């Protein structure tokens, strides 16, 4: 599952307009989502200047919050983000292989700062191919467990940050023959 543990990464950025920026990105996902370049795209509407950024990469093993995905196989990953006045939209894709197939995540968040204290709130939707798991149902009525919502709220100050993640009970994952033992994920990252 996926995207995971928040990662603080500092990346150089470039823009088509020649602007230069340095940014600290707080990404959900330990590891792999990260080095994000920044590209300013001028919009015809005055005052509406979204930031478009993204990356592609490969990792020797896809690890989400300490949990290896796809039996520690190599994973190709990438994403694209659009930011407008603190509002961020993005998608992130990773190959996992095996029974899970590929993962595609979508997220929306709002971030800002007050008195030097940064904050962010958002929602991530995880989805999986589950090619070999089509017989799995969430409620016994044939609904496939292929998506999961996760809410998060975070704060940062200087080089430090923290994020709380929560999966609502109705989205808790279910095993083939057993119910989930936990419906809430709490992570300080």
């Amino acid at each position: 599952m996926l995207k995971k543990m928040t990662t603080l990464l500092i990346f150089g950025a470039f823009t088509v307009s020649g602007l230069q920026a340095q940014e600290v990105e707080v990404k959900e996902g330990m590891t792999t989502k990260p080095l994000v370049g920044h590209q300013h795209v001028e919009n015809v509407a005055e005052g509406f200047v979204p930031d478009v950024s993204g990356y592609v990469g490969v990792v020797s093993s896809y690890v989400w919050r300490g949990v290896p995905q796809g039996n520690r196989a190599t994973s190709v990953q990438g994403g694209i983000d659009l930011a407008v006045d603190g509002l961020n939209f993005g998608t992130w894709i990773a190959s996992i292989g095996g029974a899970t197939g590929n993962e595609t995540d979508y997220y929306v968040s709002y971030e800002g700062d007050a008195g030097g204290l940064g904050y962010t709130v958002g929602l991530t939707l995880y989805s999986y191919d589950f090619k070999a798991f089509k017989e799995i149902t969430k409620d016994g009525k044939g609904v496939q467990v292929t998506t999961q919502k996760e809410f998060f709220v975070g704060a940062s100050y200087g080089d430090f940050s923290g994020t709380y993640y929560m999966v609502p009970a109705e989205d808790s994952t279910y095993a083939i023959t057993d119910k989930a033992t936990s419906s809430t994920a709490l992570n300080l990252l």
Partner: protein
Amino acid sequence: MGWGGSVGKFDAVLTYNTGTYNQQVLTTGNALESTSILAYSLGRSVSEIVTVSFNGTKVLTNSDKGTQLQDEFWMSLEVAY
């Protein structure tokens, strides 16, 4: 909880994570749980848009339920656009 800074010529990230979660579906029914993990990363830009990094996790406390997690290591190559 996280910290980001520089160590020599590398960008360093250190995060402490606590909580419980499971991946029963992804692991065909075997619950994976943990209560605290230390994650670290050392990255370096090799060009304006290319970065390589070495990453790892250290399991500090395993849950007494589900399959025990273990330390992980991985390499990463990323190209920003």
